[in-house]
């Protein structure tokens, strides 16, 4: 327990600087010290190991880079790939085929990497579409690796069939080892600095943790995942091209299912979502497999199996995952301060929808809804359960598409645009059940929101206090009202022109709900944004709404002031369930 607390403290300490100005002295992180130490030891290996061992460690390094490549897709972006050896194999075969034909191996490596990236784009573009689920990628990548192995086995003239291609031993194992070490260090360092610790890396983490929320922060989820997967494929191919000269025989198993599953095991044992974990996992497996094979003959496969099962059961986060306690997000450079609010273009129609129709398997849920919300107006949507309020909100934000009708956001037709485009056009929303990133702290949420907003907006005091007082707390540890506040705070970071709120007062105590209503009105006054709010609590609606719209059976049956709507006999009938 005290260990847990200490971890929490160190986490808090590390993240304390995250939202502040430029940090002073960076604390020495154990991970970095360890990495530097390992690198120093690795650099000296050729001086106390024989040629074979040096070659084996070099091969382990390239497998480590391959594991880092897979981790980019699996550990960071949360994309499952059961066939990553295809990409590795493209690099391996690229170099081997080039060498066998007296073409420069660099050309072979480049061809392999480009092909891998293109194949990665193709697979991800097909497997990560909106209509697919995580198993689509698993099945797709599995199919591709089986196909690739079959091709490598059958295309004798190019791949040498089942025998493969012989690669002449390298002239100096030591020199090549150092080259591999340098290349791996440079590539991993570049990935760390230029990808993982940049907004793009944060986006991948955000998408993995909660793609719905990521999308509604304005992240182009599909595009970023495709790019992430292609990058993962390219790194894997680069690792393969480095490995080829160490392999002596490049055979079809290097693109096949066995290596594909092995690399999954390395990443799982080493620690998903870490840098050192996959590298050490791959190196330990490569080196250990050879040592075990010598030491215990053919029963080493049995021992490997037991080790794997044991580690999955006992250390599910992987070895390196055990020691990871720091923030998951990078402190991306804070965006420039926003221009003064008054200078933002305001006024006119904030949000207009006309003739919106939505059917769910034949049942009509929205039946021609027209709604016009000018800038600066607060509209509350009321109606009995099943009236279509949340569906309308989802159509407005782009979470689902409408079957007919139009949605116009600040003069722009958006009904066929994905959520992130609408966010860019000035929309923001919250969900009935707060949609947040599990495991991230309040500060990390706001880092993401600010990063996507591209501007830095000072939060109203009510929300600034949340950040000040609970910045280091994980969202799981927040009260419901704080979670709702955090979601609104994230929405506000983008300085939205239209704010959609889905039951913001649900589950709040009376005094909290009243405070929320006051805060929202103050926000509207200050920001001039339009607010569309689905709410059941009539007291809040009365406090909040400039105009009340009542939905029933997918149609607007009444609108106007709270008094007028509540006096409407049709509304009363709807609420009482009368026809």
């Amino acid at each position: 327990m005290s260990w847990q607390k200490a971890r929490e403290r160190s986490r808090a300490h590390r993240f304390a600087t995250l939202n502040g100005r430029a940090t002073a002295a960076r604390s020495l992180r154990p991970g970095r010290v360890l990495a530097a130490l390992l690198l120093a030891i690795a650099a000296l290996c050729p001086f106390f190991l024989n040629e074979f061992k040096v070659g084996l460690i070099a091969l382990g390094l390239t497998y480590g880079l391959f594991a880092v490549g897979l981790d980019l897709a699996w550990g960071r972006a949360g994309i499952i790939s059961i066939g990553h050896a295809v990409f590795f194999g493209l690099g391996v075969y690229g170099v081997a085929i080039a060498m066998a034909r007296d073409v420069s191996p660099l050309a072979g490596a480049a061809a392999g990497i480009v092909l891998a990236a293109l194949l990665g784009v193709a697979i991800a573009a097909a497997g990560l579409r909106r209509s697919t689920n995580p198993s689509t990628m698993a099945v797709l990548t599995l199919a591709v690796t089986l196909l690739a192995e079959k091709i490598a086995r059958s295309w004798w003239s190019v791949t040498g069939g089942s025998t493969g291609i012989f690669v002449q031993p390298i002239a100096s194992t030591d020199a090549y080892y150092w080259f591999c070490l340098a290349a791996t260090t440079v590539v991993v360092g570049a990935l760390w600095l230029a990808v993982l610790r940049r907004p793009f890396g944060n986006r991948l983490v955000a998408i993995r943790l909660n793609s719905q929320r990521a999308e509604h922060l304005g992240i182009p989820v599909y595009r970023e995942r495709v790019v992430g997967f292609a990058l993962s494929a390219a790194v894997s191919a680069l690792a393969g091209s480095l490995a080829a000269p160490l392999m002596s025989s490049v055979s079809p198993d290097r693109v096949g299912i066995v290596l594909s599953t092995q690399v999954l095991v390395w990443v799982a044992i080493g620690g998903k979502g870490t840098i050192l974990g996959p590298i050490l996992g791959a190196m330990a497996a490569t080196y250990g497999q050879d040592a075990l094979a010598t030491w215990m003959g053919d029963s080493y496969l049995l021992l490997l199996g037991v080790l794997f099962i044991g580690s999955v059961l006992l250390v599910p986060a992987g070895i390196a995952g055990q020691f990871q306690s720091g923030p998951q997000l990078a402190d991306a450079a804070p965006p420039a301060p926003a221009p003064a609010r008054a200078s933002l273009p305001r006024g006119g129609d904030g949000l207009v929808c006309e003739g919106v129709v939505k059917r769910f398997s034949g049942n009509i849920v929205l039946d021609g809804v027209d709604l016009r919300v000018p800038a600066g107006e607060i509209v509350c949507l009321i109606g009995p359960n099943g009236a279509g309020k949340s569906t309308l909100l989802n159509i407005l934000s782009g979470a689902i598409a409408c079957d007919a009708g139009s949605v116009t956001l600040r003069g722009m037709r958006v009904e066929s645009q994905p959520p992130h485009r609408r966010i860019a056009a000035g929309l923001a929303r919250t969900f009935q059940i707060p949609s947040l990133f599990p495991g991230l702290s309040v500060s990390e949420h706001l880092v993401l929101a600010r990063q996507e907003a591209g501007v830095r907006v000072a939060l109203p005091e009510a929300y600034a206090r949340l950040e000040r007082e609970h910045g280091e707390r994980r969202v799981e540890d927040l009260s419901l009202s704080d979670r709702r506040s955090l979601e609104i705070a994230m929405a506000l970071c983008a300085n939205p022109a239209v704010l959609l709120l889905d039951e913001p007062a649900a589950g709040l105590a009376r005094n909290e709900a009243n405070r929320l209503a006051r805060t929202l009105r103050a926000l509207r006054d200050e920001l001039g944004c339009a607010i569309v709010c689905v709410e059941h609590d009539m007291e809040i609606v009365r406090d909040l709404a400039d105009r009340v719209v009542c939905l029933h059976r997918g149609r607007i049956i009444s609108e106007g002031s709270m008094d007028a709507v509540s006096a409407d006999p049709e509304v009363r009938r709807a609420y009482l369930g009368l026809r």
Partner: protein
Amino acid sequence: MNKDGSSGYDNSLGAPVSRRAFARGAGRLAFGLAGAGAFGGLTGFAGGAQAAAFKGARPFKIGFVAPLTGPVAPEGIAMQRGFELGLEELNAAGGIAGQPIEVVRQDDQAVPAVAGTVLKKFIQEDGVDMVVGTITSDEETVASQICAAYNVPVMFLEAGFWMPFCKSTCVLLGETSYSLLGPLVPFMAEKFGKKFLLIGSDFEFPHQYLNVGKSFIAKAGGSVVDEFYAPLGTADWSSSIAKIKSAAPDVILSAVVGGDAIAFVKQAKSFGLLPGAHLTGITLQPEFYPPMGDAVDGLYTVSRYSEEIKTAGNAAFIAAYKKKYGEGPIPLVGVTAYYSLRFVKAAVEKAGTYDRKAVFEALKGVAATTPLSDQPLTLNPSNLSVDYPMYVCQIQRGGLFKIVKDLGVVSAGLKTC
């Protein structure tokens, strides 16, 4: 990638290994002189072994590589058993030139890439004088290429086919597709009919074997009604068996190997293809008999070994083998592995040195007595393989390969340099 990297891809094989080893040592020495004295004592390198003096210097070191796991494990284990028996006997009788034979062993799972790693380890780390082993042609190809690159002699024990012998450092102690199929195809065609169906595992050797088979079928006036291949590790043979049944060939020439051969034959029996069909080829190996059982009783094949061969050497070998490993059919590859070290011993003693090049040269034309015949057999210097006496055998209940026809010495048929 920089200049360093392109030098890492150096394609030239010009420099012999010994010079590289020297360069490594020199580099290390320079480093030691540069001040890192702590490393000075660690710079010794075991790989310079080939320069050692001949008699009494040290044991002769052999790297033994075999697929002890994976799809062809039955053959790999059979090979290892014979090898260990031969090793014990030879070492008990004084080893090579008064020195024992020291063996390093490793499994390569029948994966060519693993075989490559194992061989590099044998050569670079253990500094072996020679390599013996491997089953599949894929392993053999990798082994022959690596051993050629490092100038290490390598001896293959399984049935082989044409390989670039002239450039490489390998010798072939197994029989060849020519010596197996040359007599087998006409025998089967005459006895059962001329419609052949070919089936094999999908790697290089079965393709080559069945291609050689096709040429002999054509020569015998026969025809091929169908031909198909399944990847190593295939467990379900029902569709292949259905195809065979509908093609109704006179003879099934099979190059399905390893654990696949066992699965194929067992399923052929449960689907009613066996007994009845005339199956032959390298699928019929003594080491598969116990699991295949009576499904193969009465089938014919061509082999160079039978427990019925009446030589003093064979009687002693059978007794020793059964004492060590129990009753049951004796695998052919086990026999080969058993006597392989006799060729090695003769060659090294003839060379008068452990020097790898000299040993390889001495292997050409070397002779040794085997359980197969009373006369010594010779490694043909022109193509580095052996012309064996061959027999048509019929499999008896219990797994005995009963000799039904003595074919005399059959040429290995390999191209000569």
